[in-house]
């Protein structure tokens, strides 16, 4: 509808972003890139909200507002995460998640 682009195109992009994010989350060896992957996942979700809002309920704005909220929360989350990562780095001199294994039995 947006200049003749069907909804599936947006959804395919969103799914790809989501799974790329998950993949990155699971396999990357660096906390910063893991944080980036989380951002990717969140953005995929935001895209979904916007697209569904626009295509299914064009006269409502809830989806867009929700998207804005997620962006806000994501910003907060990123700042928290970076603060944590900096602290981890100060203590351990690295940020490799495989080697951060204190929180176990």
């Amino acid at each position, binding site marked *: 509808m947006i200049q003749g682009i069907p909804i599936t195109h947006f959804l395919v992009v969103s799914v790809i972003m989501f799974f790329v994010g998950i993949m990155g989350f699971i396999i990357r060896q660096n906390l910063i890139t893991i944080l980036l992957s989380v951002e990717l996942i969140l953005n995929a979700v935001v895209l979904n909200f916007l697209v569904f809002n626009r295509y299914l309920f064009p006269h409502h704005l809830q989806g867009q507002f929700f998207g804005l909220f997620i962006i806000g929360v994501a910003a907060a989350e990123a700042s928290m995460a970076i603060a944590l990562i900096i602290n981890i780095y100060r203590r351990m001199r690295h940020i490799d998640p495989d080697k*951060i*294994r204190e929180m176990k039995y």
Partner: protein
Amino acid sequence: MVDFSYTVFILLIPLVVFAITGIWGGRWKPIISGLLGTFGIATIFVMSLYTAYQYFFVVHHGGPYKPIVAMNFLWLPLTEHLHIHMGIMLDPISVMMLVVVTTISLMSHWYSLGYMKGERGFARYYAFLSLFTFSMLGLVVATDLLQMFIFYELVGVSSFLLIGFYYQKPSAVAAAKKAFIVTRFADFGFLIGIFILIYYTHSFDFLQITDPNTPIFETALGKTFLGYSALSWATALIFMGAAGKSAMFPFHIWLPDAMEGPTPVSALIHAATMVVAGVFTIARLFPVYYFFTPKVLLMVGYVGGFTSLFAALIAMTQFDIKRVLAYSTLSQIGYMMVGLGVSHYGGEEGLGYMAAMFHLFTHAMFKALLFLGAGSIIHAVHSNLMQKMGGLRKYMPITHITFLIAALAISGIPPFAGFFSKDEILAAAFLHNRLLFWVEYITAGITAFYIFRLYFKVFWWKDTQYEHTPHESPWTMTVPLIILATLSATVGFVPFSKFVSSDLMPFEPETHWNLVIASVSIGLLGLALAWLLYRKENDLPDRIAKALGKLYKWTYDKFYIDEIYLFITKKIMFNIIAKSVAWFDRHIVDGFMEGVAVVTEKTSEKIKGFQSGHLQQYAFVFIASVIIIALTVLYFIGA
């Protein structure tokens, strides 16, 4: 109309004295606690006498003696039907019991001032005596069965506390425990009996259930269990509680051991008042027993008859003077039970009821006197055993004379008190149940024999060489003895049938002269036999004992009833039942719980590796699980 509401103080004064001496008694000089207790009891003694005067001579002059509820208040409203009241009911037997309890209690308090002088825990002793007096008075004036039960337990507790007064002595502790457990076990029957009554009648108020024409027992009589009506079971179970308190066979085992307590306690609790609570209970519910469950009443009579003969036989062979008196008490309570058991209702027919109450009254006097006399002897000789006594008449003239009066009274020699009441029980038994008459007739002879055996062995027999020369007791002990001796000699002349009767109407009993002669002659026969055997030291009693052989040994060992109890409890209950139950608990119940614990522990050991600390592993497991769940749901819903 006279206002009887002041009678509440008869209950409150001992309670307050108990609280005061119990809390502060330890800080005062001991004698203050003693005097406080004695004066408290003296006050309520005067009040009880006044109440009796008002009740019998002012309010109901000439009868009929209708019960008066002096006060009654709702204590616990449990359900719509089940309300527990606390109150004071005055009727002939409760007024009589008020007088008996306060008289004996006053004498014991007074006597203890001398007897317990210098004992450790003097204040504690007086506090418990006041507690007991309060509970016993609450029992006799109870307006309903549950109030009676509550005070039943209270007298049980105070008896326990006083038997175990010398708590450093293991035997006293064991005796206190035994008394408490045995009576508690019997009280369990009492409680079940009360519950059955409540279940069927929704009422346990004495005024309602003792009305001969009451319709409330219809349902209870209609329901039967094992061939007897529910009401019969209820009354039989109530009798079980009464038998436990009154130490009837087979619950008699606690009473001889209870003699471990101080002697004035034995006189007050285990001779005159608490042990007759059972008789009082049956008398209180007498119309129920007589009109609705006559078979149970007959059982009461037979149990009483058996106990009286059985205990009298044992009393002949014992050497501990307090034990002889304890078995004698059992035997005399048996008499009272027989009196109730053979009684009918109304006027001359209700002679047994009146005689049982009369015997309760006179027995309280002379048996308390016997015990206090025994206490005086023990005080002088420092031993309970007859073998260490003899020739005491020279050293203790007052104790000697008063003891002789009590012995004559219990043997039924006129004109002492026991003669009148015992003779009336025998007359009632003669009229209604010949078997019980003969049992009691023989017991009367044995009674005279064993009490004079005791008397001669202690006061005559031989001139024992004492380490310390025995001396007469101080006046605090002898004055109560003299008062009680006067009472024992005279209360027989009280025209008791004018005051207490089964149907609350005064009547004039006939005198059966042939029975009077018969009962006096068997009493004299027992006395003469004891005189022949024990007046002077000789070896005839030992030779007779040898000749009787096994028979003597059985009697001396109390027919092995204690051993049978031990066999049942130790061998059967502890070894077989308790051990198997313990095995089940240890292996099956504990095993199951331990199994649960072991399985949990092993499992967690195995799976704790899941918590690896790898952030990305967690994420992978989480996402993989979500995907699997999502796919499964989609598959089953069939999207």
